[in-house]
């Protein structure tokens, strides 16, 4: 297995280079180094000299990809792309365009992101699986049909509606919890109730419907009929027979998300005032802070790759027949 993991890690290098190249190209199609300088220096009294100085200071005074004035390998290495990308592979994210240390920011901001994402993820999976199993138990009945209708309806509603509706009803009208905010020193859970609840409810429709499909596929297998014939209770069949056998597709969709939980949620964090990495990325895009954008995309790519490797490893745990080679 170790050889497999090492091989997968080596495969990650060209993927990361490709992602980085794509991010770089997309960013500089929209923004030029001059735009970035003006954005950082302000819009009043910005002289061409000030722009040039900013570019020199921040390493944006070189060509983007190919330096025609340099010769040999320098034509590639003496460019913005090479200089800015190489450091990422050494996990040196450097400073944001406004001068802040990105590693420090990321390490501070990932905890609020996790504080919201982890409970939403864990409770969400638990609720979705329980609801799906219950619906499977009543497969073919009116309850099942109504449940599918409700799932599809819940899926059709915009995520924003859940957020705004939750804030309006629970926080504004009923005054049961704070409408937004986050205080790590205080009672954090008070600020987490609403975003977690919104996240879980918004995910029930798609999650439970998907799990229902997986469970139904298993429910029609011979081993389930055998278990039932042996007199096993429905609860036992669901949790001891169907659920373990449906784990492989569940893990495929779920484990890959676990590392990405660090990255936070753009919408939830923005609306609920959670100072996490989701809003960090959003702010960076708005303020044309390429240093943060490329670092966050890089971290996101790595986490996704780690998630995929973890998924493969989890298969061996869920199904002993699976061997990684």
């Amino acid at each position, binding site marked *: 297995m170790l050889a497999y993991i090492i091989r997968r890690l080596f495969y990650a290098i060209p993927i990361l280079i490709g992602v980085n190249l794509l991010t770089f190209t997309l960013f500089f199609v*929209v923004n030029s180094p001059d735009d970035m300088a003006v954005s950082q220096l302000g*819009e*009043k009294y910005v002289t061409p000299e000030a722009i040039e100085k900013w570019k020199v200071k921040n390493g944006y005074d070189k060509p983007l990809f190919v330096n025609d004035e340099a010769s040999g390998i320098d034509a590639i290495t003496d460019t913005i792309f090479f200089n800015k990308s190489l450091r990422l592979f050494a996990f040196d994210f450097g400073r944001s365009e406004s001068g802040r240390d990105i590693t420090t920011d990321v390490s501070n901001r990932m905890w609020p992101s996790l504080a919201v994402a982890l409970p939403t993820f864990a409770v969400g999976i638990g609720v979705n699986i329980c609801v799906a199993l219950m619906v499977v138990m009543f497969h073919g009945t009116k309850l099942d049909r109504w449940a599918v209708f409700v799932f599809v309806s819940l899926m059709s509603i915009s995520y924003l509606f859940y957020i705004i509706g939750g804030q309006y009803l629970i926080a504004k009208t*009923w005054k*049961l919890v704070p*409408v937004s*905010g986050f205080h790590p020193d205080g009672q954090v859970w008070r600020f987490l109730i609403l975003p977690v609840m919104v996240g879980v409810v918004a995910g029930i429709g798609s999650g439970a419907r998907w799990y229902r499909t997986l469970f139904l596929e298993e429910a029609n297998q011979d081993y389930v009929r055998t278990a039932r014939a042996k007199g096993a209770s429905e609860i036992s069949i669901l949790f001891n027979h169907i659920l373990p056998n449906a784990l492989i597709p569940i893990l495929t969709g779920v484990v890959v998300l676990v590392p990405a939980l660090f990255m936070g949620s753009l919408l939830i964090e923005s609306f609920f005032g959670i100072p996490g990495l989701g809003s960090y990325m959003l702010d960076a895009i708005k303020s044309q802070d390429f240093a943060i954008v490329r670092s966050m995309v890089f971290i996101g790519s790595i986490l996704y790759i780690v998630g995929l490797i973890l998924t493969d490893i989890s298969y061996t745990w869920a199904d002993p027949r699976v061997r990684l080679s």
Partner: protein
Amino acid sequence: MKILSATRAALGLALLLLLSGCGEDPWNNPNPPSPEGQLVYQSVMSPAPPKHLDPAVSYASDENVFLSQIYESPMGYHFLKRPYELIPLGVEDRPVVTFLDEQGNEVAEEGDVAFSRYTLKVRPDARYQPHPSLAVDDSGDPLYLFDSASEGARFRSIPDFPQTGDRAVHANDYVYGIKRLADPELGSPMLGFMAQYIVGMKEFTAQLAEVPRDQWLNLDEYPMEGLEVVDEHTLTLTIYGRYPQFIYWLAMRFFSPIPPEVDRFYHNPGFIDRNLTLDWWPVGSGPFMMEKNDPNSEIVLVRNPNFREDYFPSEGGPGDLEAGNLVDAGKRLPLVDRAVFRLEKEVLPLWTKFLQGYYDRSGENHGNTNNVFDQAFTVGPDGVEMSGDVADHGINMDPDVKPGIYYYGFNMRDPVVGGYTEEKRKLRRALQIAFNVEEYLAIFYKGNGINAPSPIPPGIPGHLEGEAGINPLTHEWIDGGAARRSIDEARQLLVEAGYPNGRDERTGEPLKIFIDVQSQAVSNTTMNWMDRAFGQIGVQVEYRPADWNRTREKLLTGNTQIYSHGWLADYPDPENFLFLLFSPESPLICKCDGANNSNFEHAEYDELFRQVRVSPRGPERDAMVARMVEIYREEAVWLFAYYPKDIYLSNPWVSNTKRHGISKATLKYINIDDEMRQLKRAEWNQPITWPLFAGAVLMIGLVLPGITAYRRRQNATAKNTGSQ
């Protein structure tokens, strides 16, 4: 039954947790408990958190909300008096200005002035906040200077340092602060502009650019010709020529004092990697100091215990006494102990918390202001009225016309709408009349703006009210008010311009104008309205939406016909607005980001501007300003313009909220009636608990039939097929 019991227990536990966690506070209180005995002001910060808090680098108004409370620049503004009045802040009195000739001899103001020298006397009672950078050991050496990053690695933020120190503000600190503006390492946005004025600044920058910078550079070792420390409390600053407006620049944060010790402290090895920088942790002598800087969540300012004796003004402008703005006259400032600014990115949470009483005011410079006001006001038959929630809560409005201007300008080099012939003037004037600014502001801004008949906004000398202030070429004075000239007049002007019924009389082609709009700033509804406005005179419009970067590119190359722009005052002088039409400011002439995006060129205007720039205030200068406004109107340089108006909302327990258009150093005047705040918060935030019980019942209602059905199925016998 076991499942039912478990459900009940879980619900009970959840309720217990909810109740136990909230104590006596309302359940929805998002604010942590205030420190005992401290009066805390709760406010909102801009949706874009501050990027820079170094006074040499910061130039954004939402950053100034913090910097103006922490630093004291040499000059400031009177809180209440209008027109805006300069007062000494960090210095004892207004600077003494002496004029010098080329040889450095003193001459009269009207003489052959080559230099102006400003002598500033620093207040002897001005003292810095307690800060670790000023902490010294028994021998007087700085306590926190490290040779390596590992030595200071345990300090991750300023509150981690156990020892602090303080000292008086010295004249050299102002000199050091100005030298930092010229340090090429910092990239101050003021460098290019100030180097034109301060003697020796360019040379100083060039000299520093040659110095290797692997560690802290003591700027005291590098003299700047225009700066001199006379004694511990006196300094002189010399600028080229005569520039009376320079005194206003002394009221800006760029001229704040910076102790060299602080600069050295922040250059400790490894500090920058933990964001321990002056850009993050400002150190000043103002009424407040920064206790917490987490721009992702909140910024907390606390009273500076070393702040000098400063008192609430005992006199104000007309109407201030009647408005209750002098109730706290003579009280020691600041009036609150602590100010918390929380980040709010979305309107609903901001508005909800404000109405629940958890924010004292609706926000300083909040980007969503207009959306907030959409919820706060309704347009009734008598104009803009407060909506029910706002009126019931006793919320106060603080209307404020900003000293700024937003405008759509013509590119005077454009072959269709540009040019200086009579026909072109008439064409532009016809378009000006057709665009009904008053209606536009009423529909799209709920009246939060005033039609601008000149580039000079209210509160700035040169702005005239009443009949004298109207643009007679677009408006008439009828029955005591300004009335827009008729569409018929616009049509007639169009005929005279060579476009009868909106068609070019030579080619017969319809006249089409092109407006560059910033994508997010103009809605489809607005564009439809503009189509109709110009359609009245037969003119067609095409819009060219683009983001700011692309718009800026077009302005720099003159590749636009009609563009939108805005300007907020740096200081309350007409020169700060009239320069928007000064030809050397044209991007096509200066080959820079000039402010004259209309590329307006007018010899008389330029000459008058040069004189206004160096003239002292007085009737002669006023006459020159009036003539420049007249030229602006005659030439019809801008399609339309308006002075933006903001309405800030304050809960009833907040006082001294009079808006100041120029200065942000107003936090020290804010006062809070904490008793009323507690009562109102408790009254407005009684939780409604029935949904909790209803939710529990609903859950049971959903689960119970399932359990019953499950049991029935488990206990059922083999299915009866009915075949017997």
